[in-house]
Each structure stands twice: as C-alpha cells, then as structure tokens.
C-alpha cells in the first residue's frame, strides 16, 4: 500500500513539470468558462453559445460551469482567485462592477475587486426599457415622471434584487429625473416580471427580450429605454437621453474576463478567438433567437466602455447607499 502511494507521488512529481511545459502551446487542455449565475439566466444563455463557438475556433474543449451564489459574487471571486493561465475564464454581467461597490458601502472586505480581472471582450449589451402594465394611465415616460414627482414614493417597481441590475437601472433614472419610487426587490428577473404581470407593482426596468412577448400581447406598455440608441425591436420607444436625461444610461451587458496576470500572448489569442467566434453563423443564430444584439468590443474599446459603465454604476450604488440609512 505504502509502496503504491510513493509511486503515485513520484508519478505526480514527474507529470507536473510536463503539464507546465505543455502550457507553452495554449490551449492544450479544456478551458472552463464560469457563468456566475444559475442556468437559464442571461449569463448562462450567453455563456453556452460563446463556449460552443470558442470550442469550434480553438479546436479545444470549452466547458461552461455555473458557479452560482451571492448574486454572482461566488463565481466571480472564484475566477479572481484562480490561476491566471487562460484556462479559467469568466462570463460576467454588469454586476461585476456593482458588487465591489456594494461591499464598500457596507464596509465589508470586498469578495473581489474589478482590477483583479483582465477584460477580454464584450459580447452583448442590451439597454433596459421601462415598462408599465397596460391598464396604468401613463402613456409616455413624461407622464410617468411627472406623476412620480407629484406622488413621491408612491409608484412601485419590482427589481431583480437589491443592487441588482434592474434596481440600478431604476436608481439611475430616479436620480437623473429627481424622483423617488418605491422599490420592491424580488429574487430575480423572472419573479420581477411575474410581479408586474400580476399587477402587484406599477413599473419595471427590464431587458427587451424578456418583455417583448408581453408587449406584443398588450399586457405591458414600454415607455422609454436606457440606451444610447433606440432598441431595434422597439423603434417607437424613445430613449431617456432623447427625453433629456442623459445620465439615465444603463445596459445589461455580458463580457468575457480572465484573471489579472494572464500572460499577454494568451490574452491576445483569446481576443482573436472571440472575434472570430462572434462571427460564427451558429453563434449569431443563437443570439438572434434570444433577441439579444451582439455588441462586440475588445481591447481599448472594451476597457473604455467597461470603465465608463463601472463609474456610472459605482456612483449609482453610492447614491443608493445603505438602504435603511435613507429613512
């Protein structure tokens, strides 16, 4: 028995340097793409076609692992702490910039910080849109904002959770327009939608794809969008920017990150891989079906987008502050 153990360790000792040498030709073993949210959500639905397309380009297995928990913090912390060798990547959403800020607000040691990641590429960016039940009196965003001014704290909205993406979108609008709304957090984007369809709240900021069927069936009405431009599927819905609230800009985006310290040649290879991957017809088809526009940015361009977004969100989180402190 002891003999066996010794042999095993000897073998391991021999194999380890071999594995290290093999890394010269990246990639030589399966790559893990961590989706920090449960299956069925935006992160997961984007990660799977991304992984499939990368696999095709690299001719190397790329697997999606859902490391979920604490609004994504568990999976993000996991990637931040993993070896920067290009074999563990992260598919993150906007919340990557929100979580460290929220940690700061609560004076707790952050689970991770934004600068622990090297951005590789932005895959998609979808502005949220403001929807209200069709039986509510507001026909335009102007009606909505004016009514909210008259009745501060009376109009309610559901969100995907405190400091979640759908909450932040509404907060950015509230501050831009100088209104106060009543926040009803729910555990996710799905329950938030259920709440508005059931008539339990008055408004919701949501990704366009999720509410499109309900806009078509006439249950909900779209008032305005948070984007820089109008949403292609909803050409008649104006943006808050057009309406004079340039600070109400918000996207639900998805991007691929590596841990900081990943060697530059590996990052370059990954950027190139993703550039080709997003052009694959199957990938385009998958994203089309999700009604999510592909917005590809890499290198400096992505960094700029990421920094601007992180700044906006950080400011938003600080303005929200600790919830009970406001009362």
């Amino acid at each position, binding site marked *: 028995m002891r003999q066996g153990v010794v042999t095993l360790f000897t073998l391991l000792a021999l194999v380890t340097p071999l594995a290290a040498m093999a890394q010269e030709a990246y990639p030589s073993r399966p790559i893990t793409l961590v989706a920090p949210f449960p299956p069925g959500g935006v992160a997961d639905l984007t990660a799977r076609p991304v992984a499939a397309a990368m696999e095709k380009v690299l001719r190397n297995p790329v697997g999606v692992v859902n490391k979920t928990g604490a609004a994504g913090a568990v999976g993000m912390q996991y990637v931040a702490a993993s070896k920067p060798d290009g074999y563990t990547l992260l598919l993150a959403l906007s919340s990557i910039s929100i979580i460290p800020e929220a940690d700061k607000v609560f004076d707790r040691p952050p689970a991770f910080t934004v600068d622990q990641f090297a951005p590789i590429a932005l895959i998609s960016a979808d502005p949220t849109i403001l929807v209200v039940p069709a039986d509510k009196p507001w026909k335009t965003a102007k009606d909505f904002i004016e009514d909210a001014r008259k009745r501060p704290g009376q109009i309610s909205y559901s969100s995907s959770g*405190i400091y979640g993406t759908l909450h932040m979108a509404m907060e950015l609008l509230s501050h831009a327009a100088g209104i106060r709304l009543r926040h009803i957090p729910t555990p996710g984007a799905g329950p938030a939608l259920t709440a508005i369809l059931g008539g339990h709240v008055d408004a919701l900021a949501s990704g366009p794809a999720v509410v499109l069927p309900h806009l078509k069936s006439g249950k909900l009405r779209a008032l305005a969008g948070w984007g820089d431009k109008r949403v292609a599927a909803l050409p008649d819905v104006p943006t808050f920017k057009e309406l004079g609230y340039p600070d109400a800009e918000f996207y639900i985006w998805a991007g691929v990150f590596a841990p900081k310290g990943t060697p530059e040649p590996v990052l370059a290879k990954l950027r190139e891989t993703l550039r080709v991957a997003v052009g694959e017809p199957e990938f385009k088809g998958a994203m089309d079906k999700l009604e999510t526009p592909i917005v590809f940015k890499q290198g400096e361009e992505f960094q700029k987008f990421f920094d601007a977004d992180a700044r906006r969100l950080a400011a938003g989180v600080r303005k929200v502050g*600790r919830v009970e402190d406001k009362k």
Partner: protein
Amino acid sequence: MLETLGNLGAGFSVALSPPILFYAFVGCVIGTLVGVLPGVGPLAGISLLLPATFGLDATRAIVMLAGIYYGAMYGGSTTSILMRIPGEAASVMTCIDGYAMARKGRAGAALAIAAVGSYVAGTGSIVGLMALAPPLATFALRFGPPEYTALYVLGLLVLAYMSSGSMVKSLAMAALGLLLGMVGIDQMTGYFRYAYGVVELGDGLGVVPVAVGLFGVAEILASAGQPAPPEVIKPRMRELLPTRQEWRESGWPIARGTVLGFLIGILPGSAHIIASFVSYAVEKRWSRHPEQFGHGAVAGVAGPESANNSATSGAMVPMLALGVPSGPIPAVMLAAIMVHGVAPGPLLIQQQPQLFWGFIASMYVGNVMLLILNLPLVGLFVNILRVPYPYLYPAILIFATLGVYAVNNSVVDVWIMLVTGLLGWLLRKLDFETAPVVLGVVLAPLLELSLRQSLAMSDGHYGIFVQRPIAATLLAAGAALVLLNLYSFVRRGLDWRAKLALAEKGEAQ
C-alpha cells in the same frame, strides 16, 4: 371539449412519432437517475442537458427536459425509502414513513406505492393542465407578496397542527428551521447575515444539504452508535408488492395528493417541495390512525409522493399559459424553447399548437414509460438493503457527499451537510422531530421576503393583509385552525396527540 380532444389527438400523433418518443424516453431515464442520486435534483439534470437540446427542435427539447423534471419525482423516493436520504428535496417527507416501512420489511411495497402514486398523480394532473391552464394561470398571478405571506403562515400553522408528540417541541424545531433560514443576504437591504466572511453562506443554507444531513447523515450516525448493528433486512420477492390492505390505504391519499399538488404547483416558488409537506400534513390530519405516522404509515408515502409529482404539472401551467416561469426549473425550460425561437407568452398555445399539444400528449406517454421503468426497478433497488451495514453506510456517505457537492460544486455545502448531520443526530437523541426544521429552512426566506415585500408595497401598513381578499381568506383559515385547536385542547385536555406522545414514551422504555 370536442376541440380539446381533437387537439389532444393531434398531440398524440406528435408524441407517438418515433423521435419524440425517443427523447421523452431519454428524458425519463435521466430524470429517474437524477432523482435517485441525492443532491443532484431535476434542476441540475435539466441544466446539464440544456446545451444538448440546442441542436434539437423546440418540441423535442421541451419534451426531453420535462421528462427529466417529472422523472426525477419518480426517482426521488427511492433513496428516501431505502436509506432515509432524500433523493431530492421534494422527497423529504417520504423519508419519514417510507424508511419506517422499509425497516418493517415493506420497502418493496413503499417503492411500488410511490411509483403508482406518481403515475396516477402525473396523469391526473395533466388533465388539469390541459383543461384549466389559462384560467388557473391568471388566478395564480393574483398571488402577490401579501397572498404568499398568508399562505406561508397558514403552512406553519398546519405544521403545528399536524405535529405528533409535544407540540412545543415541534414548534421549537420549526423555529430553529426558521432561524437557520435567516442565514444569507438580506434580500431587502443587501446585508450579509451570519455569513462570517464565507461568501457561499451569502446564499443561505441550501435545502438539499440540510435535508440530507438531518435525515441521512443523522440516521447513519444513530445506527453506528447502537451497541448491536441493526439486522440486515432480507426482502423476499413475494413481499415486494403491496398488500390489498396497503392499496386500500393509499387510494385516497393518492387522490388528495394529486389535487393538492397540482393546485400548489401552480403557485410560483419551490412548489413541489411545499406540496409534499402540505400533503403529509393533510394525510396525517385526515387519517383515522394518525398514530401510525412516523412508524410506516402507507398514506405518508402515497400522499406526498403523488403531490410532488402533480406539482410538476401544476408548475407548467403559468409557464405554458402565460410564459411566466413559476420557479427555476420552468425558467430553464422556457429558456430552452426561447433558444429555438419560440416566444413563450400568452399566445403560445395558439401560435404553437403542435408544440403545446405534442408536449401535453408526451407527458401522458412519459408517465406510462416511467411506470414501466420504475416498477421492475423496485426489485433491483430493494436488493441494496441486503448489503451489510459496514459496507452500506460508508457507501451511502460517499454517495450523499458527492450528491450534495454536485448541487453547486461547493465544498461549503458538504460542510453544511456534515454539521446538520451532527445536529440531526443530537436532536434524535433528545427526541426531537427533524422534519419541521427542514420546513422552516424552506419557508424562512420565502416568508421573510414576502412579508417585507408586502410591507414595502403598503408603506408599512399591516392592513394590506386583510384588505386583499385572497390573503384575508387564507389568514382567516389559519385563525380558524388555531381556534379549533384551542377548543379541543380546552374541552378534552388530552387529544390524540397527547395520547400518541404517551404511547411513544411507553415504546421508548
């Protein structure tokens, strides 16, 4: 009605076509497997298979994924009955009487009743899904936070009402469960509670690790502590089938479980878990022999196992009729059909009749397949009990650990299982029931969130619970239950519960 039959006929022509039949079969087999493995529940199974469905068309994809969902409800009872480890969270209640039946040598009967109950419930609830989907789904949407709060309060009261032995003890256990359920991020403010810097605890204590720990690990520890090893049960082939008496005892519980499970399943949330709890409570209440519960009551297996199965069909009502996911599993299934360009929503049934009716028909077919698949397996599974304990217990521990780890790929979950295992052992020694703890852990986050959401909606006014008719009705039912209990308590002093406790004490001496 005639139109429905015509549609269903067309649906069957889809469901019986070889490719759909094949995918339904694959789904059912995988579902049975993930149901049997503790920890790995239908959500994990469906998520793992989701990418594989990208290459199929929407109907095949949803037929296969639904097969996994209801298949898991069939498989989930197996380890509960044989090892007292819930195969998935909805089978927690089956651990109690199913395992007790197994200890009496009736494992085969318990497994067979669970399978037949699942079949009846599965098939019966599809009729409900077919006939009532649109009106019921609209009704379910009227359940907002205040209605949920009232429902959960009622659930806790029913639990107190059903408890055997000391009511104080079981309320204490429910309170312990509620307290354990407080661990995690405060959903309203974002504060971490009792997380002590462990990011994983931010999500709270999962139901699966807690249930596997409290039931499975505690059972193993308790058996290991006995001076003489328990006798190995050697089931004989002719004892595999339930007796006439056992069939009679399971008839009504299966029927009640079916209706109850379906109705609860429609409501958003972890309905299949709650459905099984409520069914157990109802059966115990309705039973002429409540003292048998906990000691191998057939109804305690038949009811919950039927309820969790029909809850899966119920969960599909809002999903198919409104495009609203009623829980994480329907959410993944919605994602699977969206990937194929089918827009879920109120128009799905009209626009995709082939998908809707094919899907419904495939569920009928799938349930028949599962029955055929599961009944012969009963004979096979029961043989596990022949394995001597020194081999069986370590194997079960490995099995449970792997399963719990697999839920979130989290070592923290394994620790939670081990710690709650120790806790469960301690509680058993002290004569406490552990099922209320699990119910508390399930209900605490739901109750807390809906209560605080309600108060946020009303700006802090408690009146919201009586102004809304559904919430008020539910609370009134709860109040009636309490009054009824007080009345019988005052009038008789000793009711069946106290007698039962006395009987149990006599047994312990």
